[in-house]
């Protein structure tokens, strides 16, 4: 499980979902400028690169998975 923390909004997320697909984090609008993205994924075409509004401020990998990141279903 690859858990990352966004430097801009302190949000914690899994880059790879349990189904194997990539997850794209976007900071909530109340915390960071709208549509600031932190995807850490390369793009091959100029058109796709332009769809990413901002590169983000980077990530740091937390040592401990925080509460709430469990994949157990809530009640």
């Amino acid at each position: 499980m690859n858990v990352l923390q966004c430097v801009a909004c302190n949000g914690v997320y899994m880059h790879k979902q349990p189904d194997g697909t990539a997850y794209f984090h976007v900071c909530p609008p109340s915390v960071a400028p709208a549509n600031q993205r932190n995807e850490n994924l390369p793009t091959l075409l100029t058109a796709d690169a332009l769809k990413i509004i901002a590169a983000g401020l980077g990530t740091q990998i937390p040592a401990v998975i925080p509460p709430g990141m469990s994949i157990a279903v809530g009640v």
Partner: protein
Amino acid sequence: MESGYQPQTTYPEVKFNTTAVSPPSNLYMTREDVLTLTVFSSVLVIITIRGRLLRGDGRVIPFSQDFTTSPANRSLIATTMALGEGFLLDLFVFLSSGTSKRGQTFAVASIGRGDGFARIDHTIVAQGYIFGQGNLFWPGGVYEAPNSGNGVLRSIVGTVPGAGAEISETVPTGARWRLKTLNAILTPSAAAATRRPQLVIDDAVNNLSISPHVDTALATVATSYNWTEGAWTVATIVGSGDTCGIASDLRLPAGFRIRTATINIQVADQWTAPHYLVEEWIEP
């Protein structure tokens, strides 16, 4: 001595040419034409392209090529094959390695001239989703639009927001989502306030739908919130875990957001990661 037997066999009335036969296909390719497979995929798989080409000398040449869908981020990736001059007899594109469900890998097989950005396609041979039980083939295949039929159901664990921040999930580039359910738990801080979460769907600029929840959350009382497509709850039943409704069949393009807007949220309140179920299609 002759037997006197007269054969009475009836021969077919139809006769076929065995020389100078016209080609069975109208898809003629010159040496300048290329067969291109354009793919949009959210999963890493290997696709195999196979077919046969009838050359001018009468020889039928089979071809086969494997193609890996990397990067698997729904962006456009393509491979071209210069088959030479002749008539394309058939084409078969299928999933040869990995797992893909309908809604995850969309492919277009085309014929054109040129290469890269200079290529000009002049006909589509086949297009549609490639998955375990679904393939592209020509002739006889159907042409599918990427937003047609059933998409793939995905269970997503979203971002744990920072303290005092709201949940915010964005439809990724190249995808179209239909939100079906969402669950998250709010643990309020000790600050006294009556929090009421709302689920908001917007286009990154304008709010399109706001669904307030019937349950409120008081200081330090962790409360579970559910929103479900088409559900309708008008009063608190349990106080935690009740379900409220969101619009049915709401299909969101890339960049649209699913987020919470909690009335009276306090700076140390903490949402868990949202767990939500979406139906997803590729949207090139």
